[in-house]
């Protein structure tokens, strides 16, 4: 009997997972389709851009700066054991542009803006504001979801450009002022080994992560139920699911973009 219960539980879990993925897929397709179909809401887009992009600047900037500094310090500690200190600048710039910039910016924006999106839409759902939109000749997917998807997909690459610059600057500060590298030598080593593809691949990753952050925030908020507890659960689910997807997709994108 217990074995049958376990099979039933497993079956129900698989069905629930398939249903979740199906609903998420339909939601994503619907949201993206509304990005391309009028009417558009530029004020909503501007507001989403401010909330996701502009207000995330400080947290992304600080994260990138300190990450670059720590990376330079840690690299020096390790590389000095076998006399490879000269590789520090290259390690910092490649790590930041290819991986750490987009991933850390994605995780920080997920925690800040993804949570805010889920909480706002969740509150709108449980207080009937989303239903009210429908009764006022406004398609909620078009008004609430499409602008956030578009704003996050554009804003995150811009944030990552800043993260790349500040991450490299962090490495430079530690390399030059603490570890004694010459300014010219450090910069030369940084740009000699940097290729366009390194930066572009990071920006492609950032655009995908931005879309994922907005999608998971909107999806979980939009279908939240049950008052304050439901909104809290939706917010947690948005951040956790976006973070896991960012890390998993980072591997997939790295495989696609770099492995020949």
């Amino acid at each position, binding site marked *: 009997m217990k074995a049958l219960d376990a099979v039933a539980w497993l079956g129900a879990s698989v069905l629930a997972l398939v249903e979740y993925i199906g609903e998420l897929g339909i939601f994503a397709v619907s949201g993206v389709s509304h990005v391309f179909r009028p009417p558009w809401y530029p004020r909503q887009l501007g507001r989403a851009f401010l909330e996701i992009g502009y207000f995330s600047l400080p947290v992304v900037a600080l994260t990138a700066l300190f990450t670059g500094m720590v990376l330079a310090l840690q690299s020096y500690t390790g590389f000095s054991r076998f006399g490879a200190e000269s590789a520090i600048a290259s390690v910092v710039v490649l790590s930041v542009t290819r991986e750490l910039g987009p991933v850390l910016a994605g995780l920080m924006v997920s925690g800040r803006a993804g949570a805010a999106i889920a909480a706002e839409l969740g*509150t709108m759902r449980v207080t009937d*504001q989303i*239903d009210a939109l*429908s009764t*006022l000749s*406004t398609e909620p997917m078009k008004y609430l979801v499409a602008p956030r998807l578009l704003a996050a997909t554009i804003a995150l690459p811009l944030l990552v450009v800043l993260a790349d610059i500040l991450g490299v600057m962090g490495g430079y500060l530690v390399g030059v002022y603490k570890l004694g590298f010459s300014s010219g030598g450090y910069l030369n080593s940084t740009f000699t080994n940097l290729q366009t593809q390194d930066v572009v691949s990071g920006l492609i990753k950032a655009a995908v992560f931005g879309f994922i952050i907005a999608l998971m925030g909107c999806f979980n908020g939009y279908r939240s139920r049950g008052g304050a507890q439901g909104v809290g659960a939706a917010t947690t689910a948005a951040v956790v699911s976006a973070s896991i997807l960012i890390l998993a997709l980072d591997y997939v994108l790295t495989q696609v973009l770099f492995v020949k």
Partner: protein
Amino acid sequence: MSNPKIRIRGLKKHFGPKKVLDGIDLDVEVGTGMVVIGGSGTGKSVLLKSILGLVTPDAGSIEIDGVDVLKAPAREARALRQQIGMLFQNGALFDSLPVWENVTFGLLAQKKLSRAKARDMAVEILAQVGLGADVAGLSPADLSGGMQKRVGLARAIAARPAIMFFDEPTTGLDPIMGAVIDELIVDCVKRLGSTSVAITHDMASAQRIADKAAMLFEGKITWTGPAGELLTTSDPVVDQFTHGRAHGPIQMALRK
């Protein structure tokens, strides 16, 4: 034979194993006020949301002006539903927008007027529900419950709808504010010549805002009649509900 503004036949909706609507038949004549009464969780809100297109019924038909909105092309159904103004139970005002933008949201969405004109129009509409121009720039969070209801009513009437829905319009208000809101509802509906449907638990409110009443019980409309007869009818279900008797045909879950 008259053509009702809204005609509902055989409307069914279930959520999981629970049958919420089990074959609703209801007519709302043009220019009349209908109130639907019934216990909590009996499906009154689901009925309104089905007409609004916010919930998809399992079976049945909903005709507005003789057209079944469940079968009509999406564009036609949307146009028919656009003549409905809705006052939500908790106001459902948009937190992120000031009061004036809440009031004229539907008109701005349909690009029927510029933002500059919208603010002036919002002030005019707010005056119709007894609110001054100073309220227009406030955030919904700065308003009392009664004021939020008034702003919700202002938003519902802004597009001069031919049909108006009121979901528990007096819930959460003190009796005097409840009577004020009822008076505003009657005044607005009369001025616009609208057909209205309300759902409420408040019998005094039901009699003030409606001409006709319907009892929703076990997923069906079990009684219809003049709203003035709500407290005097011999129907045992209505009698128990309107007089709040603990014993009768309505078995509350707690007593089972």
